[in-house]
């Protein structure tokens, strides 16, 4: 009963907030609706018993990816009039994407009508006492070790690529020398003198 209520709650919020992502006028509001959608999708994952995936969804997407989205979107200086003027210009491309998505939906419904796939039965997890994390770990580090390492290398290459592309050498920049700053003592910068009256000070 509680699971059913929770399922309908999460599922309806996911769909509603996903709709609001594209309907909201303000991009920051869009990102917030997207975050709500991620969060409720994590709730749906919990209901299917995939608690590890649910937590990763929140940590990675809500905690890192969406923060960066929000960061960029917050900085935008949006001119709503200009935003609407591009409507006709982007209409052909948008329509193309819409047609592709609609076709995919038709195919998906058709495939679903054709009957269940054998895969679903094969992928059903065996009921064991071991937790989600352990099972994923055992598969990931034995059977799928090559794919796992390959994904890691792809990510590493992407990271190095991003650094190489955005890195630029700037001339004439004074870089802080932290260890020199830390080594500096009061004696290096100050001196204590006791001048006589009326003699003045040499600075």
């Amino acid at each position, binding site marked *: 009963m*509680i699971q059913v209520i929770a399922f309908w709650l999460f599922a309806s919020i996911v769909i509603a907030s996903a709709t609001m992502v594209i309907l909201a006028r303000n991009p920051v*509001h869009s990102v917030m609706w997207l975050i709500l959608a991620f969060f409720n999708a994590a709730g749906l994952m919990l209901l299917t018993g995939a608690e590890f995936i649910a*937590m990763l969804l*929140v*940590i990675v997407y809500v905690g890192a990816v969406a923060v960066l989205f929000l960061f960029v979107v917050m900085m935008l200086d949006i001119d709503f009039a200009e935003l609407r003027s591009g409507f006709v210009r982007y209409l052909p491309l948008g329509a193309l994407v819409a047609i592709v998505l609609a076709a995919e939906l038709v195919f998906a419904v058709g495939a679903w009508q054709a009957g269940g796939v054998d895969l679903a039965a094969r992928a059903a997890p065996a009921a064991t006492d071991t937790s989600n994390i352990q099972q994923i770990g055992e598969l990931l580090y034995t059977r799928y070790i090559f794919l796992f390492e390959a994904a890691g290398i792809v990510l590493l290459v992407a990271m190095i690529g991003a650094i190489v592309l955005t890195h630029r050498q700037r001339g004439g920049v004074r870089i802080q020398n932290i260890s020199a700053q830390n080594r500096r003592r009061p004696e290096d910068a100050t001196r204590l003198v006791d001048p006589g009256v009326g003699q003045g000070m040499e600075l």
Partner: protein
Amino acid sequence: MTEYFQRMMLYVPFKGWVDMGMSAEAAWALATICGILLIALPLMLAVAMIIYADRKIWAAIALRRGPNVVGPFGLLQSFADGLKVFLQETIIPSSANRGLFLIAPIITFTVALMAWAVIPFNSGAILADINVGLLYILAISSLGVYGVILSGWSSNSKYPFFSAMRASAQMISYEVSIGFILIGVVLFADSFNMNDIVKAQQGHGLGFVNAFGFNLLLFPLAVMFLISALAETARAPFDLTEAESELVAGYQTEYSSMSFALFWLGEYANVLLMCALNAILFWGGWLPPVDWAPLYAVPGIIWLFAKILFFFFVFSWVKATVPRYRYDQLMRLGWKIFLPISLFWVFLISGYLMLTRYGA
């Protein structure tokens, strides 16, 4: 569902209600709500008292008296402040983004309460004894940044916006190293479950101390976690988000009345949470400090509270004595010092465990 409950303290009322003829699901929902209230209400009281304690400690270090007018020794000061704030008018700036402006303090406050669901107060006293407890903490603490970013952006004002930028960069930077530090603890405890992490510390240090912190491999992580916890909660010396000399009051500048109070409560609930995490992850949680039978006669919750209060004292002590960091120093500490060291420590710990525990 019933097996799940048998491990928990709430099982007693749950079973009582089932015996009285209530359906298992209704009893489950009722027991969970009772558990939530049992944690949230004392937590709010603790936050009120801890604000008083913070001000008293700070005053004592600065050779002042601190709050001493309302109630005996000024004990009721926080409640007087709460009443004052409650009676104030809520002011919403006309150019603010109304919806987000109002929802931001609610997010901060709710998120600060949510994380307490997986904190073990004793061997069975835990609201949600889930096997991804520590990941849940990470997930929830990564949500905390939204309250700050949103309040800064929706205020439509310069200083809150600067503060929001600073806060988000700071929280993201330190979350990375906190993640690696937690991996070290998880590797030693062999579990993400908070209760199992506490139990793994029994007699861990030198054979008789109930703490991971006394393990030479984990002690540097404990120190880094304490410092990262200060940065994550934006406490002094890392309180650049509220640097009053530069940013007025940071992201809270435009807030008044209850919405301001929610930020305040959420902030201190987060500080208490970080103190509790320090105690649970590195210093034995609800276990007594030393693995000696007579000490187990004292309820575990008292040991946990003593440790939380000790770490809170350390937080106040640091706040009163250490000058504020410069922003570039803060970023350098996070990315150039903590991140490499904690990453290297993951290698070190996993290598050590491969050689000893999982050897050959």
